[in-house]
């Protein structure tokens, strides 16, 4: 299948003025308050300058004035679409600093919740990506399914988006009695919808034309820019912290790392980044099923930890595989009950910095698709 792209035209022969176009900060396809200063030559993007910071809420400064437990709600608000994963990374960083071991049951519930949240995040990512490329119907199907996952979260923690559910040393409270059945039903539903989405969106001719060979990110550039998560794996790098540096109990589950192979275009194009997310949902379903089967029914959900959390003097950089990439927390403790410094290494922040590199030379309409394929959340970019 060969298609002639407009990009193949030699634009140097066409006389046109350069134009500076302002996209955002309030534009539906920028996924939040992101402002892009785009330099255009005709309709071809020659440079993009992202301006961020509209959602800066001083997370790091506030954390320095809070107890270790009180930081957790703020961590929720970083990547507000996958709060469970954020909490897991922060809580595990503090636990590692203090050398706390949490009960078996807690580990299983944490993994199940994180994987459910990963599915919910990827559903949003695929849905809005489809929306950016002009497909509206998959958006409705995926948001309906995401709602079922949010119901589970709501039943367990009381919150739909911001949970404050994982605490240092355990969980806020135990899960409800019918938790296991609910989760297994969700897994069934997710698989069914994903099949539909593959027919409806992923292998759709129009969608492939819009996304294949667009925004190609080579593997070495991705590594040099510090990309992580589906953006890195879409470029064909088999790197997943759950597998390469197993934390929590991820080493007990058998799952694969999907990577982009350039099935319909070039390795590392927008379609590859999207298919990685689709296939990761399936892997998350596998992990959830295994975890549900192994999860102990009885047991405490709080480890015996002191009421006031005072980690010993020291520091730690802990990273976990978030749906969007590598979320790292660099925590320095001076032995008091408040952290001396908390730095959040947000995956969206680092992934967004590659946007100018991969959108040069493509059409302006492609820029929106490329931005959608990176899957950013501005709450995390600006912190």
């Amino acid at each position, binding site marked *: 299948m060969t298609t002639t792209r407009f990009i193949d035209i030699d634009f140097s022969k066409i006389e046109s003025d350069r134009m500076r176009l302002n996209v955002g900060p309030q534009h539906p396809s920028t996924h939040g308050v992101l402002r892009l200063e785009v330099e255009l030559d005709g309709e071809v993007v020659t440079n993009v300058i992202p301006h*961020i*910071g509209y959602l*800066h809420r*001083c997370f*790091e*400064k506030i954390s320095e004035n809070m107890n270790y437990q009180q930081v957790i709600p703020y961590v929720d608000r970083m990547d507000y679409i996958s709060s469970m994963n954020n909490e897991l990374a922060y809580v595990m960083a503090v636990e*590692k*600093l203090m*050398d706390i071991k949490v009960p078996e049951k807690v580990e299983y519930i944490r993994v199940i919740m994180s994987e459910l949240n990963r599915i919910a995040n990827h559903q949003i990512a695929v849905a809005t990506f489809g929306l950016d490329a002009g497909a509206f119907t998959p958006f409705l199907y995926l948001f309906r399914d995401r709602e079922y996952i949010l119901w589970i979260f709501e039943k367990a923690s009381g919150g739909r988006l911001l949970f404050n559910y994982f605490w240092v040393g355990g969980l806020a409270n135990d899960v409800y009695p019918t938790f296991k059945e609910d989760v297994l039903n969700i897994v069934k539903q997710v698989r069914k919808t994903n099949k539909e989405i593959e027919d409806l969106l992923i292998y759709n001719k129009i969608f492939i034309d819009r996304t294949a060979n667009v925004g190609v990110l080579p593997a070495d550039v991705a*590594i*040099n*820019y*510090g990309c992580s998560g589906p953006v890195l794996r879409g470029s064909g*790098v088999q*790197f997943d912290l759950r597998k*390469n540096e197993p934390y929590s109990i991820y080493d007990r589950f058998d799952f694969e790392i999907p990577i982009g192979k350039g099935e319909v275009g070039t390795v590392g194009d927008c379609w590859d980044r999207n298919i990685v997310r689709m296939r990761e949902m399936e892997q998350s379903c596998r992990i959830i099923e295994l975890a549900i089967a192994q999860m102990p029914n009885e047991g405490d959900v709080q480890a015996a930890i002191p009421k006031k959390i005072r980690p*010993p*003097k*020291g*520091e*730690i*950089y802990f*990273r976990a595989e978030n749906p969007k990439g*590598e979320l*790292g927390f*660099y925590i*320095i403790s001076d032995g008091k009950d408040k952290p001396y*410094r908390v*730095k959040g*290494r947000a995956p969206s*922040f*680092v992934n967004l*910095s590659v946007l100018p*590199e991969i959108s040069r030379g493509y059409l302006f309409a492609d820029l929106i698709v490329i931005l959608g394929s990176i899957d950013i959340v501005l709450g995390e970019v*600006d*912190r």
Partner: protein
Amino acid sequence: MTIEEIYSVLKEKFGDSIGELVTNQPVDPYINVLPDKLFEICLELRDNPELDFDYLMCLSGVDFPETLQVVYHLYSMKKKHKIVLKVTVPKDNPKVPSVEKIWRSADWHEREAYDLFGIIFEGHHNLVRILLPYDWEGHPLRKDYKEPETYHGMRVPY
């Protein structure tokens, strides 16, 4: 490679620019580095095939009572080892060579450290504020920071 082996490779090549190796922390041992040869050290870390640190995980500024510090967390995708570098600079002259040309991920991280701590990264191609407005005054993550009374006529503290 273990961190001791990496340390001895660097020590052999750069001598006095490499400070001591600190391993008495509860977690994460680190290497102290002097700022003057930081760029060459980082280039060696990336380009030496034995070390091969191709991935900058995190770059953070830290404010200590007397000094400012930049912390580099490095990782090697192929060799699967990691190290932590620390550069300490005085508060009245906080200048650190930029490593943006070695790892492009340092670009925004360095701008963030400049924005929030006022650390000057020499050789950075576009060292401007990133999270705060471009005309903001002061560096908020410093411990002695006092927020301004007003910003463009709006009251800041509430």
